[in-house]
């Protein structure tokens, strides 16, 4: 009784694949520029040394991770309003990419924190702990996705969880900040005064990662859509084969 048919979206997905094809050369240039900016153009940080260069990738991933999780919630709302399976494909794709970015944020942060803060995992920093909770929420989202058979029920439940997960982010942030300010805060927030060349490198790295996100989103959404088409064809064949 699906009100939407994945096959209707096939022409549209062809167009996305085309767009992502056009984006790819652009993406290559941006990523090379971002690498150049981070490793060669930006000056060596006086106190932290070379390890500070990880910051450009760290921040680029962090921004896109929030963008991706916002897209999951937005697509969830749009699914519940329109009941169009297309939005579930977008949410699924965006959650997967968001988790990759969140993992990069946690990994690069940990690599940076070891020499600078002398700890792999600074529980004292609210940003780190919030990012970890965020990561847990969206891994739970993917586990929920994988435990349900495709269908309207799955799309609805995942939309609801995606919305609740995103609404939870500011409350998690507040609670963890209060939790840590009660205990002595060892770590003051760094940054603030960035050298102009560092700002330039950042201004390339963030858009480069954003284009990476958009390209991946197009490709991944198209892939989920094609999986949906394959599922529908499979069902049609099974139904026709029945005596």
């Amino acid at each position: 009784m699906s009100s939407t048919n994945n096959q209707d979206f096939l022409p549209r997905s062809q167009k996305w694949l085309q767009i992502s094809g056009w984006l790819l050369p652009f993406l290559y240039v941006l990523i090379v520029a971002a690498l150049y900016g981070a490793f060669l153009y930006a000056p060596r940080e006086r106190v932290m040394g070379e390890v500070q260069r990880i910051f450009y990738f760290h921040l680029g991933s962090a921004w896109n991770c929030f963008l991706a999780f916002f897209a999951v919630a937005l697509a969830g709302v749009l699914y519940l309003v329109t009941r169009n399976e297309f939005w579930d494909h977008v949410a699924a794709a965006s959650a997967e990419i968001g988790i990759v970015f969140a993992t990069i944020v946690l990994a690069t942060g940990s690599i940076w924190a070891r020499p600078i803060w002398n700890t792999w995992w600074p529980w004292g920093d609210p940003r780190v702990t919030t990012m970890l909770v965020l990561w847990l929420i969206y891994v739970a989202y993917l586990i929920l996705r994988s435990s349900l058979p495709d269908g309207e029920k799955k799309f609805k439940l995942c939309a609801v969880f995606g919305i609740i997960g995103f609404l939870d982010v500011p409350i998690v942030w507040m609670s963890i900040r209060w939790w840590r300010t009660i205990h002595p805060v060892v770590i003051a927030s760094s940054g603030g005064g960035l050298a102009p060349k560092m700002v330039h490198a950042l201004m390339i790295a963030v858009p480069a990662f954003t284009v990476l996100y958009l390209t991946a989103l197009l490709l991944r959404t198209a892939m989920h859509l094609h999986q949906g088409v394959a599922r529908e064809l499979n069902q049609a064949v099974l139904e026709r084969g029945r005596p």
Partner: protein
Amino acid sequence: MRSLKLIWILAEKDLRLEYRSRQAFLTTFFFALLILVVFQFAFDPGSTALREAAPGVLWTALLFPGVIQLNRSFQLEKEEGTLHGILLSPVERSLLFSGKFLANWVFLVAIDLLIVVAFVIFFNFSFEAKLAWILLLILLASAGFSAVGTLFAAMVSGIRTREVLLPILLFPIIVPTILAAVNGTQEVLLRHQPQFLVRWIQLLSAFDIIFLAVAFIVFDYVLDE
């Protein structure tokens, strides 16, 4: 008025069922008791380390049995096919949520109070007036826990792996509740800084209001029979 009455009928049905069998109540209470005892073995009993960790142990002991109860609240209905009957009756889905939420909340508060008594005895705190603050924390924290938990329990009720899926979905979302409850309890039992306790109570209340409203609205989408 009619809605309130319907909510009470739905909640009272679950509570009466539990009162007559006392099956879940005894099981979850025993489970919580075991957690309190296991922590005594994990740490050195009577040590300052364990005393410092006591608020965390208390809320761990309340958390896991709570999940069992939440899972049960829709499981029984599914098994007996009674959920179908409720859905067929002229009751709005949001009222069904409210009824289930109320029953879970009352159940959890009742069991939490008993566990606090066991906790005070096992951890050698004293029964004094300030425990009233812990009662308030329990009321607020289990409201948020039941609000999100009842919604998620309804969501996973049809899934084969629901027993493990419910805590996986629930725990990351209720991180603010756990933090506020543990730290609030710490202020009451160990640190005595009222301004921080008030802050945690505010956070718990905000969480309750936001997620009760959200769960009330979206519950309509998660049950379809």
